[in-house]
């Protein structure tokens, strides 16, 4: 007896309701808007005023573009922009080269490599403010370790923290110490992503080591290295903690952008001016963030194609 075979219906999954969808993402997004977007608008608004940190709203005057004019004309601000640019350029370049060299050295596995790498990662994860005050001991001209190791302590040694030429170099040194592992880690990932068979093909074609490096290794690492440079640059532009911990907010030789804003707004009580200056920097940072995300999309598309 043949029974009618009725195919069982596969139950369909209901598409999620709007409420569900937005319910999941709303809390986070609302918080971010409240704490980032509104303050940005507020900063924009007060940058057109002469608000000081203790004035009430009623007493605030509208000064229109004065603060911005001041930002572009005041030599102190120009100095801090120069300091920051110099710092960022030097720090990122040195970290990139050192980090990449380290990654090249650490590429081949050896016993204990995991331990060595983990230890090398530690400086990257430490608090800049805390380490800053600690490096004071090392860099102090009179009893600092660095000068003693170099064999020149006492009144003749280079005064890392007092000599105005050396101050920025000190900050640079500490930053390189902290962030080279960052570049190294990303460089290693980049190096490991190059498929073996390309090297084997090059070997068959009897390419020299230098050619291999120049034509294969470097170009294939370039995308991830660029990513690393982007990330590190955006972070370096924000440099604040280290300078504050080691030099304080008032030293013109090492005032990076954020430190200058702090000095103007928190020590000088001039929130309006600080706001204008901050907004100018914001534009630059947003530009970098845009490049970053577009670039991420590009890399992930490439990775997707490579894997396919």
């Amino acid at each position, binding site marked *: 007896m043949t029974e009618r075979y009725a195919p069982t219906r596969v139950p369909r999954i209901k598409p999620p309701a709007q409420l569900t*969808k*937005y*319910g*999941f*993402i709303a809390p*986070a997004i609302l*918080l*971010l808007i409240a*704490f*980032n977007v*509104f303050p*940005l608008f507020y*900063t924009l608004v*007060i940058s057109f005023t002469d608000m000081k940190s203790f004035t009430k709203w009623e007493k605030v005057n509208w000064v229109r573009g004065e603060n911005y004019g001041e930002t572009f004309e005041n030599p102190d601000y120009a100095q801090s922009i120069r300091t920051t640019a110099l710092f960022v350029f030097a720090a990122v370049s040195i970290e990139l080269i050192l980090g990449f060299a*380290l990654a090249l*050295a650490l590429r081949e596995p050896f016993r204990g490599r995991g331990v*060595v790498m*983990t*230890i*090398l990662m*530690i*400086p990257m*994860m*430490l608090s800049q*403010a*805390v380490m800053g*005050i*600690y490096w004071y*001991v*090392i860099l102090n001209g009179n*009893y600092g*370790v660095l000068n003693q190791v170099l064999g020149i*302590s006492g009144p003749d040694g280079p005064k890392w923290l007092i000599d105005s030429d050396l101050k920025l170099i000190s900050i640079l040194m500490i930053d390189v*110490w902290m962030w*080279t592992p960052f570049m190294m*880690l*990303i460089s290693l*990932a980049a190096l490991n992503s190059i498929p073996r068979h390309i090297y084997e093909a090059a070997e068959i074609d009897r390419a020299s080591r230098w050619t291999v490096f120049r034509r294969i290794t470097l170009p294939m690492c370039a995308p991830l290295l660029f990513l*690393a440079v982007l990330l590190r640059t*955006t972070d370096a532009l924000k440099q*604040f*903690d280290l300078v*504050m*911990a*080691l030099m*304080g907010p008032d030293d013109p030789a090492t005032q990076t952008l*954020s430190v200058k*804003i*702090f000095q103007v*707004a928190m020590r000088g009580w001039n*929130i309006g001016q*600080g706001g204008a200056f*901050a907004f100018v*920097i*914001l534009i630059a*940072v*947003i530009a970098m*963030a845009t490049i*970053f995300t577009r670039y991420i999309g590009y890399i*992930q598309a490439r990775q997707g194609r490579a894997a396919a």
Partner: protein
Amino acid sequence: MKLVRWTIIVGYFFLAVLPLVWLVLTSLKSEQDAIATTMKIFPGDSEPGDKSMVFRPTVKDSYAKLAEPLPGDQEPFYFFLWNSTIIGLFSTLAAVLLGTFCAYGFSRFRIAGAQDWLFFILSTRFLPPLAIVLPVLRMYQQFELQDTHLGLILLYTVFNLSLAVWLMKGFIDEIPRAYEEAALVDGYSRWRAFWKIIVPQAATGMAVTAVFCLIAAWNEYGFAVTLTTETAKTVPVYFAGLQGRPTGLPWPRVAAGALLFVVPIIVFTILVRKHLLRGITFGTVKQ
């Protein structure tokens, strides 16, 4: 070539490790040894001018004194450590929870303008804290949140949200949809499926994200220095504020405090070493 390679590795290793080793050694010295002009590598409770290299660590000037406030301060180191701990833990909890919800939404649902939203979320992490802290300061003064634990917890939660969302999205993307779909077919609601299926699978991811958020909150200085004065002051603000004191600092004590502060970070770093690359690139590059 091999020689060059090993020179680089060993050389850099020493350079990287030396400051940390010095930190440990300083925390074990007596005060006069710590600032001796002739370098004393090993701590030894001795007369000035004694150049012996006998290893005699002492904690009497360092760890033992951590419970006392520094001259001129009101609170000892442990007070600030407690602040950092409370603020760090609660803000991490909130950030990971909210971040996971948000990441799940972006990972599984088609949301209009998702790329733009994700860009917005990421860009909040790129902002220099000083650029948005001024309005936040005024806002906090208004709501009496300034210098409170809650104020900083709230701020750190938001600050870490972008990291949490991006990291968790990476982790949740890796969980096959089949599991929740099976549950949904069986009649689970999205909410229940989320808690019963996704969360257990994403547990490692949540732990890793929690570690990175905790480290970020622990180390944070920019917001803390502008928004706290006494009650909610965290350790980084305390330490950075030590700079520029006219009377010299008791270095062994400072070193001991710094070490205590830094040890949890080192432990956590070792725990998540397999995910470090992901953590520092916001989840975009996997190890």
